[in-house]
């Protein structure tokens, strides 16, 4: 989508006046909708819809052996799939760059042990651990992908139930383990520290959060900050353009406060979800 100069001017001025084209202020978010446990065969799943951005995340588990360098840690792997339904640009290999960018950003954000405790995923030091496959499917793009993806990933991880391991028997080099047969003998992951990403978009001289597609087109550059609790876990610059050190600092501050607000809202919402609610799915 290309915008004409007059539309860009209109958006630019609206950001300057702190009254954006849909009436939001610079630090405001659009309302979102969340559903967890939406993909039955997976261990945990979530779907988040933020205006026109639609993200589906599912978590799968497998038993793997830990790496030699980190024998006590489990593994987590992110895979992003850009559906060509989202925009025609994703057709063929068109979305690959964006997909790797998002998955790299996520894995670096989840690397820190304070953000995500991979030690809990270890079953037997050095030989057995859980591996989490987090599959992210972008169904629709309406701006602000990173934020939506990180929120959906956090919700899906919150929803994930890991089967309890009853016993582990070591016999020489062979490791035998018994997983509980009970369907509901599971434990949840602790995701309170899981990072939330916030895209801070620079338009004119001001910084905004949660840009729409049109606003993204007007932006001179943006910073994605991943914040876990109150610490930064990853910072990434996307889009062309350069940022002045002062602007960068400002946007980091804005990103941090917004991420904390988002985080507490998300956790509150997740607590409200009860398991017996009916499935909504995609049919409106």
């Amino acid at each position, binding site marked *: 989508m*290309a*915008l*004409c*100069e*007059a*539309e860009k*001017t*209109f958006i630019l*001025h*609206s950001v300057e*006046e702190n*009254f*954006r*084209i*849909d*009436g*939001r*202020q610079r*630090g*405001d*978010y*659009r*309302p*979102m*909708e*969340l*559903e967890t446990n939406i993909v039955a065969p997976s261990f945990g799943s979530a*779907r988040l819809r933020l*205006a026109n951005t639609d993200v589906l995340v599912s978590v799968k588990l497998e038993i793997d052996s830990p790496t030699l360098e980190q024998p006590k840690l489990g593994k987590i792997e992110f895979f992003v799939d850009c559906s060509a339904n989202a925009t025609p640009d994703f057709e063929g290999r068109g979305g690959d760059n964006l997909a790797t960018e998002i998955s790299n950003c996520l894995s670096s954000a989840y690397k820190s042990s304070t953000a995500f405790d991979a030690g809990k995923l270890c079953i037997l030091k050095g030989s057995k651990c859980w591996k989490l496959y987090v599959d992210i499917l972008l169904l629709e793009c309406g701006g602000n992908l990173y934020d939506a993806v990180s*929120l959906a990933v956090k919700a899906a991880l919150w929803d994930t139930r890991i089967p309890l391991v009853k016993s582990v028997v070591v016999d020489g080099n062979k490791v035998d383990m018994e997983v509980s047969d009970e369907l509901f003998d599971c434990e949840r992951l602790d995701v309170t520290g899981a990072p939330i990403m916030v895209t801070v978009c620079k338009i004119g001289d001001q910084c905004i959060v949660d840009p729409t597609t049109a606003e993204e087109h007007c932006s001179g550059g943006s910073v994605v900050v991943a914040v876990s609790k109150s610490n930064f876990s990853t910072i990434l610059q996307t889009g062309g353009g350069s940022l002045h050190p002062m602007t960068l600092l400002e946007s980091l501050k804005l990103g941090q406060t917004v991420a904390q*607000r*988002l985080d507490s*809202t*998300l956790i509150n*919402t997740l607590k*409200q*979800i009860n398991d017996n*609610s*009916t499935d*909504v799915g995609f049919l*409106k």
Partner: protein
Amino acid sequence: MSNKIHIGIASDRVNPSVALNQRVPKIYTPGEVITEQNELMRGHGTYEEDGCLKSSVAGLKEEVNKLISIKPLKSRYNGEIGDVVVGRITEVQQRRWKVETNSRLDSVLLLSSVNLPGGELRRRSAEDEHMMRKYLQEGDLISAEVQNVFTDGSLSLHTRSLKYGKLSQGVLIKVFPALIKRSKTRFHNLSVGASVILGNNGFIWICPTVNTEEESVGGFIQNLEYIVPIEEREIIARIRNCILALAQSKMMLFDTSILFAFEESKKYAVAELLLPEAMVDVALLTQQRLTLLENQ
């Protein structure tokens, strides 16, 4: 809603339908038998099989005497001569512009079917061809009228009137073409202080009210220096959110419904109108006022 973030739960979603107490019209699905009579005529969106008339799209039945057609709920725009459309230039070609108008194929705007700046009337020379990008370039928004429909369904547009031409500062929103109510006038100067162009193709343009004198200079002037005052911005944003609320509840869009929605939305702040609950509320109140108006 300043600074507060809303994350709703899908199972608590509000039903956007406003036709609760009223008769919901029957929606035909593809392959469904409409009638088994043979005397009726086959219109758009239907086909004959085994002596029955069946629907080929999902939509509502329309009957004109013996002609039966199914009007699809969601579709691309099917142009008709005389329709006013809003479109975006996608390409500048030899003697023509390609325009995105939400139809299946890109529409064309010929160099010979635009007004030259200043309203000069003459044959288009090679020089004009070189100047084409000066008039309209990729990404520019225009309002135009459908001049001709080709056999493949693509449209030929023209802007040979002072009311058509390049659009300046404002907001574009996209809705389903079926939601735009057909009426004589597409250009509305709403009394609340903004202008709305309801394109038949589902593209709606909202901009600050323009002086008709200023406008008549020609269709290619954009004033980028002008800063739209915050009051007008608020009106535009409110109209934008109101139209989206009506569109979400599948209500017809025309000047009265937009005005009613605007008035009913006054109790919410503009940004609050993004919340699904507020959107449905505004749509419901508008629906009530419209039925009242109808019954009078």
